[in-house]
């Protein structure tokens, strides 16, 4: 399950999420969209989520954190 999902249709590629992630777990794909590259290292701080001007990031807790 993707714990941090980015809706590319709404994303304006401002890179606020990629720039600010404190764990450096996001990367940018060939089309220039950010994506969660290092799944296990995300700590659910929500910084990408709250900084996104388009609210096109969703965070979901995985089974292992239930």
């Amino acid at each position, binding site marked *: 399950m993707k714990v941090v999902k980015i809706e590319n249709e709404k994303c304006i590629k401002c890179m606020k999420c990629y720039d600010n992630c404190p764990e450096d777990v996001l990367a940018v794909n060939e089309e220039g969209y950010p994506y969660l590259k290092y799944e296990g290292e995300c700590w659910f701080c*929500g910084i990408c989520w709250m900084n996104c001007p388009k609210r096109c990031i969703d965070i979901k807790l995985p089974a292992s954190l239930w």
Partner: protein
Amino acid sequence: MITKPNAQDVKVYECDFLVVGGGDAGCSAAIKAAEEGVKTIILEKAKTDRSGHSGMGMDHVMDFPREGVSNLDYVKFFMGRHELLGGPGALMNPNVGYILGAKSWWALDHMNRWGYPMRWEDNDDYHWVRNGWFGKKIMIGVHWLDVKPVMAKKCREVGVQVLDRTMMVDLLTDKNGKVCGATAFNVRTGEFSIVKAKAVMVSTCNLARNYTSETPMHWKYKMRFHGHPGSISGDGFNACYKVGAGLCNMDIATNWNYRIRDDITIPFGSIDHGDGIRGQWMNAKGEPIPFPTAKMYDEIEKAGLDPIYCTIEHFNDEYQRRNEVCISDERFVSLYLGAQRGFNPKTHRYELMENRRFGFYGLSGVFTDENFKTDVEGLFCGGDTVLGLGGCGSACISGIIVGDQMKEYCATAAEPEVDYAHVQDVIDEVYAPLFEEDGTEPMEMESSIRYINDRYVGMHISEGKLKEGLKRLGSLKKHFMPHLMAKTPHDLMRCIEVRNIFDGSVLHFNACMERKESRGNFLRNDYPERNPENDNHISICRLVDGKDTIELMRAPELKPEYLEEGK
């Protein structure tokens, strides 16, 4: 494609004052020094705008003695808080506690002036919050959701050169052993650099990633850590130790079992403190219990009355509302994630962690005097890296105190000299994982180290377990550590972190072995009694002529002038 550089060709930055770690302490130190015209650089592994403990917000800042609390009362409280972890007596430098109280109001002026949001908009006054441990309203409730962007902006405004995504690898020393800068590595580009400085402050938090993260998947970073995982890999602990600074109380790891297992939803700070109302701890039957120490936890477990819960159901509506504001101030996404789990934050009974360790907080750290200067020339520490410090308020205050000394210190400090042969060794070590084809991934190694700490130190310590754990760490070092592998700069960063976690773990085991007693939350099954002779003694690990040493050092006394002026 990253390539391994030659020491002579790498980029060299020069400054007077280098700050390693751009969190609350680091930014505050850098701003203060730069304001006084000191050429200052920040090395920050993440991005200063959102890094460190306050990157995702903060709801309270400690402590500002008032309401009849004298500085001497404060230092007593400050030390008392540590007794929960380490048992009776002073296990830190009381002069540090004293100065934090005594300089807090002076530091608060700076924080206001720099635009840290300290006052509440509705009445433009401080929102005084009761410190749950002390019972006095000496903490300030803050809306610090966006404090880090404010700090980062201020740093740039006053001319601090901020090197984001650049982690310290090691500290550099000159031929006299004085710290004169650091080696650094860009975690996105893979570029290596040297920063020359006349003075360095290390403020990279403590070490906590040596214990598992309370999930069935050991490698995961859970919110449990509260501090941001990138900063709790013990980078500063390890670097300071390697240049000869004393690393203290590495035996007394934290097991603050009142941490909330459901902490993915609710950070603990907002519940534990409050406007006069505290959360209520209870056993599995719902019977109220006092704040659970490790020993009490054991008893509850033996009686079959665990798990332990905390409830805030008794809060009145006003305080429930206020608590939700605190939660959002500490981490905006919390209530959203809580809703996913079907939590009602008002009525949910928050399950506490079982009795486990989760790293070092507060009582462990680098020994400093009350100017936050270590025993090594040129090296200062700030924030949670300092022995006895924990939390963002102390972090800001300590940083400002260090920054304040830099103009004078750097005016007479020796010019930095770089030993390029040493730098080449560091480069060889950093880039080695790139050339490993069939080795171990850093996350697998980290999980293994964490699991060894859990299994062989854990809550109930004994010599046999420690010996077995050390043996396993030794064979990990021999067979696997030289074969860490990485393909990207990000993974190389994790490899450096794993090295630091590993080295900190070995010190942890060694320090536990040396302490042949039980005290506070340090429980040895083979030495169940406290040895009163060890009260007021700090355990210090130090590298002397390349050899690891541990000694028990008598904690300094509070200076007579403070005893006089602090009444």
